[in-house]
């Protein structure tokens, strides 16, 4: 092993190897750029009817919530929330504002407990006409919702017209009102 060694030797074809490897890289990548895979999560549920569901009342003595309640000709805002969800508390004033503007809001309480829920509603106000309890996240999955809070505008035929991910911020109240108005037409 003590022969005179030339480290990486430059024979005629070898020097072209990097160029060829690189050309291959460019080809693969250019192909992929032209055919991008789907990465955007689109709300596939807009325009679709609400899935069939029937939820128990979230609080004793109140009404539950089912799909049948939602297709009576009236436009409603379906709000998925929970007492343990901090942005839901942040969202409460906006829901109250929407309620004051005449929007009927129905709630789905996610994995919540009656006592906690009652305390939450006492502290932040109750804009909901009905609250269903979704203790197993079934509705959340069925609606393709990724977290709490989320709101859906449901038209009079029970069709989903708009999905709002995250809490409704004060500057978004007009947007929601507009979506409700569109759903009424």
């Amino acid at each position, binding site marked *: *092993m003590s022969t005179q060694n030339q480290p*990486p030797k430059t024979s005629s074809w070898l020097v072209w190897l990097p160029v060829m490897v690189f050309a291959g890289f*460019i080809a693969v990548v250019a192909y992929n750029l032209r055919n991008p895979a789907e990465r955007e999560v689109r709300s596939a549920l807009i325009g679709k009817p609400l899935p069939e569901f029937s939820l128990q009342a979230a609080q004793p003595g109140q009404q539950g919530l089912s799909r049948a309640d939602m297709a009576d000709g009236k436009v409603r805002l379906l709000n998925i929330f929970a007492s343990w969800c901090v942005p839901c508390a942040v969202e409460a004033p906006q829901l109250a504002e929407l309620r004051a503007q005449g929007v009927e809001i129905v709630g789905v309480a996610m994995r919540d407990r009656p006592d906690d829920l009652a305390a939450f509603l006492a502290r932040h106000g109750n804009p909901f006409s009905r609250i269903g309890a979704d*203790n197993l996240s079934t509705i959340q999955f069925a609606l393709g919702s990724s977290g709490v809070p989320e709101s859906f505008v449901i038209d009079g035929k029970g069709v989903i017209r708009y999905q709002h991910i995250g809490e409704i911020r004060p500057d978004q109240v007009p947007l929601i009102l507009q979506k409700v108005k569109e759903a009424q037409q």
Partner: protein
Amino acid sequence: MIANLGLAALWFAAALAFLQLVAGGLAVRNPGHPLQGIVRPVAVVQGLLVTVSFLILVWLFCVTDLSVALVAKNSHSAKPWLYKFAGTWGNHEGSMLLWVMVMGLAGAFLALIERRLPERTMLATLFAQAFVSLGFYSFLLFASNPFARNNPVPAEGMGLNPLLQDPGLAFHPPTLYFGYVGLSIAFSFAVGALLTREVGPTFAKAMRPWVLGAWIFLTIGITAGSYWAYYELGWGGWWFWDPVENASLMPWLAATALLHSVSVLASRNALRTWTIMLGVVAFSMSMVGTFLVRSGILTSVHAFAVDPTRGAFILALLAIYIGGALNLFALRASTISEGEQFTVTSREGALVMNNVLLSATLGVILIGTLYPLLAESLGAKVSVGPPYFNPMSAVFIIPMLVVMAIGPLLRWRRDSFARVGKMLVLPAIVTAGALALAIGAGMKVLPLLGLALGLGLLIASVLPLRGRKLRTVKLPLWGMVIAHLGVAVALIGMASESAFTREKLVAVRLGDTVQVGPWSVKLDHVSPVAGPNWTAIEANMSASYEGGKRVELHPQARSFWSPPQETNESALVTRWNGQLYVVLGEEAEDGRWQLRLWWKPFVTLIWYGGLMIALGGLLALLGRVASDIRRIVAKDKIAYRRKRQGR
């Protein structure tokens, strides 16, 4: 108004880069061309103008000027000022402007100070640098204008990705960019040398500080990035083989190889073509990394610009620069003589081994990173993770560690193993002993080898200092010793983390105590807290190490509202011998809280090791720069004396 000024400065800088390209090109073709004299001044002014443009963008972010689309999209008036400031480069356009600014400044600095290269090579280097910069200018101006305006002006900005709201963000990307751009200078040097065929020790000495500097920044960037991912993502891991991590690791590996081969070229005038090749490869890896991240072609937490148009633009730049440089290399390589000869058992031989092994590791990681792309174009969806990367890179890294232990002890040109063998008895015994112990303890293969080799390397690294007076040891040698020690330290940390970590995933009630490793951790209470632009549930916990004094911990589950996103803020307790890592999860229905706890013995060594590697580089750089300055001063003295004698 100010935004327009920034855009104007950017256009001017781009125009000057074009002028630098034309004048440099003419001067390289016809030495003595009248435009030759303007190349250096133009490079300086170009650097200044692009800096002005960047500072204006920083200002726009700091005052939250929402008439600028970029600010409105990425900032928010309620954001803490540090994040407004750092938000400048926490987005695609701003980070590209930062990149171009660093590039311009580096070019200006090079034009100002570098005097030892033959002027023609220097002009060719500045020509290449202008060529590279021009591509990025056009990318900024035509495909990602940071100064684009909004009309009408929105009332409020759209925030910043909360994952990026961390002090680390203020420093992490710029650090990596300094590294990448330093490599762009090395690339320009390599192209310049290929154009003029002047490759030798002078060239290597001129190129070396840039490579060293870039390498230091990359080392710090990767180390910091790894720690950031470790505490911010809340998964308890420190390296995920994420495409973006690989994108920063690949240039680092190439730069490490380049660093070693440029040293051989500087002191022994050998490995000429190989050094040039690595110069091209190192920057190519930075560009490929940037492309992979920015085009959104690979899905990653870092991919903030999923935009095929931009992807196509960067790809075109990539094809022009790298393709061009590799072609030039192929055409010119045979005309550059190989340089001095040496035997296998010599310092050079060991460095060649190290280079080959580093390049092989680089190749393995590159294949792993690109394989999902290749598979996707063939219609299959795969992801490549640790089961591939860990063993495949270990195959090359383990022999490299052995070479690292032996190489520095070998003499230049010709040596024998018999001579260094005696010195390596101690590290070999330590390695063997640790191996025996670890096998006895039933450790897994990789942590076992890592721990044993790490301990052996720890001793072997300081052997080059043996028999020397420590006060007379030169800085670059200190640098090497400390950097190699750093590798050993980091390795021990990695092996220890992977072998000895204790993990607990539990649901506990308030007041409950959990035992994890030597720690007992108690959940005292949980309460809501509010920050400037987030709200959180915070757990108040106390932990005690083997029944000792109790330490408070406050892990949080944070909710940001602009844009809405949930993050976990882990809580850490650091001791000299490891870290306790706690993440607060969700509240279960029965009022119990999910907690995830880890005790990670000696995990911090990973990052201390990384910083030691960077410190080693810094010492070497200081040593080289100091001797360069001494040389310049001595030269000036001689010139001054001659001048006086001439009179």
